[in-house]
């Protein structure tokens, strides 16, 4: 067990964990932030997406020892984030979610996209969200919602 100081959603959080533990499980079990989901554990589905600095990161693959003091943002922080709020509002307006389990990851991906590219094309959206799995098949409404969020932010 190792004591680590992490920067999570703007707060300094101390955890005492096996340092090989993926950040995903530290967030969910130590910090009780269960909005970030376990979908596959191998980075294939994106349900575990957080932001580390400006970059979308699949937390199921990131051993907590490699996080360091880099700022981590989770889905729980998106309601206080300008782009996050717009994406959430667009998601609700467009009635995107079905079971909803993949949506934290999709929203985190969409926020990362819009922060880097405020006017994404269909092809941009398809590439940036191209590695997220939604078994309910909400992709069509996701495309519309990302465009809607971009309009809201313009």
């Amino acid at each position, binding site marked *: 067990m190792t004591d680590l100081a992490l920067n999570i959603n703007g707060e300094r959080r101390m955890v005492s964990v096996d340092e090989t*533990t993926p950040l995903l499980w530290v967030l969910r079990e130590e910090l009780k932030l269960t909005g970030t989901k376990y979908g596959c554990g*191998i980075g294939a589905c994106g349900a575990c997406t957080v932001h580390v600095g400006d970059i979308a990161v699949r937390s199921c693959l990131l051993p907590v020892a490699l996080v360091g003091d880099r700022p981590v943002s989770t889905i*729980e922080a998106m309601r206080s984030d300008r782009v996050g709020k717009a994406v*959430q509002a667009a998601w*609700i307006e467009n009635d995107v*979610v079905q079971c909803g*389990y993949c949506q934290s990851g999709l929203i985190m991906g969409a926020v990362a996209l819009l922060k880097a590219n405020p006017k994404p094309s269909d092809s941009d959206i398809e590439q940036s969200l191209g590695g997220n799995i939604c078994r*309910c098949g909400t992709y069509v*409404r996701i495309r519309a919602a990302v465009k809607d969020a971009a309009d809201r932010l313009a």
Partner: protein
Amino acid sequence: MRATLARPNSHRSRRVFLRASAALGGGLLMSLYLAPPAIAELPSHQPESPPDAFVHIKPDGSIAIAVIYLEMGQGVLTSLPMILADEMDADWSQVISQHAPAGDVYRSPVFGIQMTGGSLSIANSFQQYRELGAKTRAMLIAAAAKRWRVAPSECRTENSVVYGPGNRSARYAELADAAVGMPVPEKVPLKTPAEFRLIGKPVRRLDSRAKCDGSQKFGLDLDLPGMLIALMARPPIYGARVKEIDSKEARSVSGVRDVFAIPLLKGEVVVVVADRFWTAKQARDRLRIDWDVAGLERPDSVELRARFKKLARTTGLIAASRGDPNAIDSIPAVNRIVAEYELPYLAHTPMEPLNATVRYDGDSAEAWVGSQFPGPEQAAIAQVLGLKPEQVKFNVEFAGGGFGRRGPFDAQAPVAAALVAKRLRGAPIKFVWTREDDVQGGQYRPMFEHRVEIGIGADGMPAAWKHVMVGQSFIIGSGNPFESVLVKDGLDTLIAEGAADTRYAIPNFQVSVHQPTVNVAVLAWRSVGPAINHFVLETLIDELATRANVDPIVYRLKLLSQEGAKLRAALILLDEKSQWRKALAPGHAFGVACSEYHNTGSACVAEVSIKDHRLRIHRVTASLHCGLAVNPLSIEAQYQGGVTFGLIQLMAAITLKDGSVEQQNFDGYTPPYIADAPATTDVHIVPSTDPPTAIGENPVPLIAPAVVNALARLTGKRHRVLPLVNI
């Protein structure tokens, strides 16, 4: 040891009563109970969330509505409350919807057990929830009328307010306490469709916000004091039992509590219990287990395919037969088609893997499960723990997808959790399937071989059709509560559903089934028989249409029998809405398919092209006749989602080699990502006020044949082997 599930109750012979009572914090509770209690028995106050409430009007004006089905994405936690709230004239903005826990009163009014399946939640509970809403409204009016000393007929309601003569008005919340004392009406008139305020309107989901801000809890998110995680180590061959466990290294991982074997599915697994997921996983990875695989069949996909093909050349158990089974012999060979279809095992892969949490306290227990069968699973847990079902508080959690995986008939997830909870009494045990457990140790859509011989008449229509299908039954011997109903003379009638009962008027028609026994765990997969059988039928019908040089929609309309009215309506609407199919860009082609399932008729056109060897689906236009469309926004979502869900049939397979499943995770069993899905999907509903029928599974059988038919138009190649290779 396999827990037996409760048999379906002869529910209809027990009378169900609606009762009103006062809630502990104030307000009106509308509950069901199963026998008329003596007046003295009725407690005057109920706990905040008693186990049998349907509607709770709270003093603050919010209205909690209990839904007796599992929300797994299909939107039932919005649609069913809409129905009740509409008849109740409730203020929709005040409605809170929640899962009903396991309880006798929450049994399906049609099936007699508490379950979600068959896409029948709305169809089966439409009337039930309308009546609940209407009766609650009637009692609120009665309370107001009594207070104002007017006749109830002089009152009207709107948005959680009763209005009386003059300027009198009272909010439901104000009237709730008084309404408790009102008699519950036996019968009340229901609204006419013209009076609907919510039903029939595109109403957004109630659970959106929580699912967008990370606050929605699923079963896997549960956190309880003292909770432990249980993971399993699976055998390499299905059905194996444990000979010996070397857990020395596993137990040396700090935080591990216990390691032991439990029965699961046909064999056993070794469970690791630890304080954290990662601890359990590391310990599990360090287990050395000697499995007893002696005498177990070691299925192999290549060998199975050969076995199935051989069986397909002989007639099996007859599922449908009319006309002359040998009619095909008198049709010239040039007018015959012989088609062999190869369809693999498929996994469900809901995004939230299977999980269940159980805590055993000795004389009671509590469970939290995203369950499609809460009633039977509550009973199964009780049996494991030596309790009565009512001693097990069973909470239904939001599920991250189901598709059939959350309703295994042996209640394997809650039973596994209960077995561990029994051993570690007092600690809540969260038993988790990893994605590898889900993909490699799953319960699959059965593998099938179909052999169809068709004789084409002079008019280009099928004159003879002889169809043999070979695949496992997931019903026979499964513990499914409906087995005695579904299996007739040894034939599992679900296997041929969609083919045996086709609406196509084909004379000289025979469907027969072989049900081989294979050492592979199988289960219902979203849309069950039709997903498989309509792939075969709809691609063959398309081939016939092409040969006859007739538009595929026109051909189907011509072939449909009188009984196919809903399909007919869907196809006519589809024709109207898909005229774009007649003028496509170069390198693009369209394909058509239709499907009827549980009284809803659907059809679709898909537009495809091939770019860099990859299939691109540009557009899908879908149409359906489902009777009354309760929530058209939700229906559109299910069709957009369902056609995407169904694409995996073209893309992936579960295969076995020497007894083991080869795929382990999404890298080997890859579902559709956004680029694989249709770029747009428009959905059109035939207007109707008939009783609402099935939605959730209905789009799935459409997409695979529509796309394969489009590919045939594009490349000339007719794919009968899935998944697609070398398109």
